[in-house]
């Protein structure tokens, strides 16, 4: 069996809002093996980005365990947390907001090195910064440039270089390409692929774009309203989706081909509010297969064999709702 780098157990993150308790992440379980990419997909507001931030302790979890290399990082003290930060990094969605506009590119890339006092020698540090810029494909002459002088693609490369600076083992990729144009997006995806091979990185890849997630992931978890509804390797996810939400989601993707016409499942209505969600299956209101039990009991993520997990009462036995 492969070695697990990260395991998340019953992770919860609730926010207090004026309107009530927002269940952003509500009992999420998954693991990531060393060197693989786990794709986390879902629509806006499903809690995927919050999950990414809680895993890195950028937000404090409400409940649960996050086991990284055998230790629960939620129990870490300040010192241990600092050490952990060197192992786990993040690349953000917005290449404009994630770089401090008042810092030059080299300052941005060097920040992790400065903060963690990696080098005592300034020249050594500059050498490392150059090396990182080279790794992500940024020309050396841009060392003293400022973020506002760069396009989105180059900024995202800087964000990646910053994440790589401390030689982490694990990187959360939070929608790293969704703000970029297609041609640039492909460049960045290839770069991340190369980096993974070269440095043996493990990724948690968060995205709303199923095509991209399928391309980069070994396994995929689908989130809906704070819960994972289906988790399996990418092949079986796309060939044989079991959860009604996954089925609808996959069928909704517009495919850039004219030779393939796909059956489309149109969902009714919008995603309900994550504030004070009722008991029962979160997908209940929009599911065409719903039964009485779905309203009363929250389905657990069940092991269906072959490392496929589904949270549905009627997995494999879906019948249209009789109302």
């Amino acid at each position, binding site marked *: 069996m492969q070695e697990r780098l990260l395991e998340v157990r019953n992770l919860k993150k609730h926010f207090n809002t004026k309107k009530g308790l927002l269940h952003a992440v509500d009992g999420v379980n998954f693991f990531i093996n060393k060197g693989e990419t786990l794709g986390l997909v879902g*629509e*806006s507001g499903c809690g995927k980005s919050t999950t990414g931030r809680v895993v890195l302790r950028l937000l404090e979890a409400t409940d649960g365990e996050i086991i990284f290399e055998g230790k629960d990082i939620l129990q870490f003290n300040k010192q241990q947390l600092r050490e952990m930060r060197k192992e786990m990094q993040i690349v953000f969605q917005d290449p404009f907001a994630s770089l401090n506009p008042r810092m030059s590119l080299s300052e941005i890339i060097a920040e992790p090195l400065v903060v963690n006092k990696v080098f005592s020698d300034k020249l050594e540090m500059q050498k490392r910064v150059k090396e990182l810029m080279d790794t992500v494909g940024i020309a050396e002459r841009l060392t003293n440039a400022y973020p506002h002088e760069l*396009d989105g*693609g*180059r900024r995202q490369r800087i964000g990646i270089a910053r994440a790589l600076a401390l030689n982490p083992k694990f990187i959360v990729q939070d929608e790293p390409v969704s703000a970029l*144009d*297609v*041609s*640039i*997006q*492909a*460049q960045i*995806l*290839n770069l991340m*692929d190369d980096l993974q091979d070269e440095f043996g990185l493990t990724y948690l890849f968060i995205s*709303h774009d*199923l*095509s*991209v997630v*399928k*391309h980069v992931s070994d396994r995929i978890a689908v989130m809906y309203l704070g819960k994972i509804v289906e988790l399996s390797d990418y092949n079986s996810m*796309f060939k044989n989706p079991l959860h009604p939400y996954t089925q*609808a*989601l996959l*069928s*909704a*993707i*517009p*495919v*850039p*081909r*004219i*030779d*393939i016409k796909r059956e*489309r499942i*149109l*969902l009714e209505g*919008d*995603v309900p509010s994550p504030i004070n969600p009722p008991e029962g299956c979160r997908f209940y209101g929009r599911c065409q297969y719903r039964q009485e039990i779905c309203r009363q009991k929250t389905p657990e993520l069940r092991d269906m064999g072959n490392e496929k997990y589904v949270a549905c009462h009627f997995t494999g036995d879906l019948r249209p709702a009789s109302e």
Partner: protein
Amino acid sequence: MKDNKNLLEIKDLSIHYITDDGTVRAVEEMNLEIGVGETLGLVGETGAGKTTTALGIMNLVPNPPGKIIGGEIVFEGEDLVKKSQSELRKIRGNKISMIFQDPMTSLNPVMTVGDQIAEVVKLHQNVNAAEATERAMEMLEKVGIPGTRHKDFPHQFSGGMRQRVVIAIALACNPTLLIADEPTTALDVTIQAQVLDLMRNLKHEFNTSMIMITHDLGVVAEVCDKVAIMYAGNVIEYTDVKRLYTSPKHPYTIGLFGSIPDIESDESRLKPIKGLMPDPTNIPSGCPFHPRCPKAMDICSQRKPKNTEVEPGHFVKCLLFENTEK
């Protein structure tokens, strides 16, 4: 191509933005046509000139700094470029209407959605207030929103629902041409599917022609009959959907297809286009794509490619194909 009578013909249209930093050639010598009931996809990345084209047709390009430099926009036999603002106002929202990208910002936050639909009805149809409201409720029902919600304000709707309201405004006067500027880009996949489905049905029902502006080749495959691919202000390839997806010709089009992950097959690596979009105030000489083109020749940096018909109804602006014509 279909031998329908053309509803809209764009001939040699050029639109420039004249700014302090230089002139942006947002649209350069564009030639397009749309038949009755047809859907044209306008595809390109940020800054390709898609939205400017749309605003140009409506004659809503912000001026200054934007200006229609030359060309004709012939709509139902009449050139829109030559029309006065008051003549244009009778066409806008009536015969040609538009759906914008961001449903969160394209509705007036302090007006009820019913009033916003009724406004366009009152402007173009000879109806009183009660009839206009009636029509607004009818339109809401058409786009899948209970008519009783016409007194609600935009903030009481989700993004997908707001886009439905925008569609209701656009279709309220039975336009003959609908311009949709990235209508689903801001929406989630499942909501996008709902909205696209709705648009397809309504387009059918009203027999409206449509220009669908998008960067998503998947959306194009789904709803369009014809496609124009834009790069740096130029339509570099223009043909029907079938030809474009089975035998794309322009290196940029091929590059675009190579950049998107294909959900139906397993590719281990993407084949992206190298380099970056050019600076809009400083477009490369010759073919604007030549610095990024894998098949660039010496001449590409020197001469602008002409629009070449490589096979009937398949136009490409690329020097690779200019000789094959002769």
